[in-house]
């Protein structure tokens, strides 16, 4: 399989701060990859550039054969790249299932006319939307909360809704920004299984940002390390784990050793 996403020489700075400098990454189709790096290294910024929330200063983003530079977020989503957020950003007063249904927006073909006149197409599509939303909620394991207001759900479940919502647009690639932050080890294990399932059962390529080394090392096939906006290392978990620059800038000696112990 070839690369589904190719990022070349991406640059973005805010005022004087260069958040992303000259980053190039390749993501293989059907892989699970991670981006790690110290706080403020530019990981989230990279995601924001990919999804069109920020416009890059220079560089190119080729996704699935088309360039994403200059595309609006909704166009990126339509092109098949979807994401979650580092700080959960659900639609807090919508129900769980409505959140997922919004995620399908870019796949729907409904005009004002259809909605007002209630054409046959409208009913068919709505039925399909509901059915698919339930399927996705089952997939992430929270279908029993489908009709609850999303802000009332515990944190872990909110993360799952975000994942289900990201999957709703039938993406080819999902970007997960610190999906296990604030989870305890047991919960993050469950989360890891979910990410594998996304790849294995739905065939969606997964890219995550994580600080939890257990998760990163446990499921990634490929890891890129950013520091001060630059890529300082990449490769398999093993390569990265033993790269002295990564240990120095990011892992710290103790983490490396505790993890090795497990």
């Amino acid at each position: 399989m070839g690369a589904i996403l190719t990022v070349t020489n991406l640059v973005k700075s805010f005022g004087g701060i260069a958040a992303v400098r000259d980053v190039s990454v390749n993501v293989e189709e059907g892989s699970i990859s991670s981006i790690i790096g110290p706080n403020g290294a530019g990981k989230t910024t990279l995601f924001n550039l990919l999804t069109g929330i920020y416009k890059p200063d220079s560089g190119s983003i080729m996704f699935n054969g088309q360039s994403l530079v200059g595309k609006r977020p909704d166009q990126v989503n339509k092109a098949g790249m979807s994401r979650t957020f580092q700080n959960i950003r659900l639609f807090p007063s919508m129900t769980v299932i409505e959140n997922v249904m919004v995620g399908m927006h870019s796949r729907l073909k409904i005009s004002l006319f259809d909605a007002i006149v209630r054409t046959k197409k409208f009913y068919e599509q709505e039925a399909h939307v509901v059915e698919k939303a339930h399927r996705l909620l089952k997939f992430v394991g929270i279908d029993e909360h489908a009709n609850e207001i999303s802000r009332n759900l515990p944190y872990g479940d909110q993360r799952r809704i975000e994942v289900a919502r990201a999957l709703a647009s039938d993406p080819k690639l999902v970007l997960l920004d610190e999906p296990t932050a604030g989870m305890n080890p047991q919960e993050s294990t469950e989360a890891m299984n979910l990410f594998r399932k996304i790849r294995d059962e739905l065939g969606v390529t997964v890219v995550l940002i994580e600080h939890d080394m257990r998760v990163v090392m446990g499921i990634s096939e490929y890891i890129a390390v950013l520091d001060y906006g630059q890529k300082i290392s990449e490769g398999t978990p093993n390569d990265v784990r033993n790269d002295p620059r990564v240990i120095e800038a990011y892992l710290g000696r103790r983490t490396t050793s505790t993890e090795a112990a497990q």
Partner: protein
Amino acid sequence: MSDIVLHVENLHSYYGHIHALKGISVDVKKGEIVTLIGTNGAGKSTTLRTISGVLRPKRGTVTLKGQNITGMRPHEVAALGVSHVPEGRRIFPQLTVMENLDMGAWNVSDKKLIETRKEEVFTLFPRLRERINQLGGTLSGGEQQMLAIGRALMTRPEVLLLDEPSMGLAPVLVELIFDIIQKINKEQGTTILLVEQNALMALEIATRGYVLQTGEIVMNNDAKVLLKDERVRKAYLGEE
């Protein structure tokens, strides 16, 4: 029992109809590091928020050095020597690093004292010194966490409430933060109530620990004992 600084008894707190705390009782002695661990949504943050007055409990009491502080407003609690570093750091994004620290010293009027304390903070976090005039909102996550802790230390609190100080931090910073927590506790004698997802590390530095589950305390013991406890290891340390 005179060495009990913070005494929480049978606390009940609500979010609307959600009964988040169902009778929590916690004691913290002077100079201790006590940690609260538990699953997501167990009510750890809620406990801290109730203590510091952000939330008003429906029932129960919070006592600080023998004084009943239940239902006091946050600034009144803060004036009594309690510093709360909430979840998510809550740096003032449009204030500079320096101003953020000044905010921490709100209740201190002695200008000299403020300067010395700032020096102490900068000694702990040299990185902050480099960024004195940067706006808080543009700091990276780790820097913000340092600033949040530094800000809380500006009053020289007797009791420091820390809510998940390691969340979202790079491993190397997690270590740093834990080191600093210990250092504050040892060198300044600050009593610390620590909430953590990273139960392993928390228990390693803590004197005692409480385990919360859906708003109730299910276990309560010396940290060393909890570390060895079968259930704790399984549920919170992620061992199979």
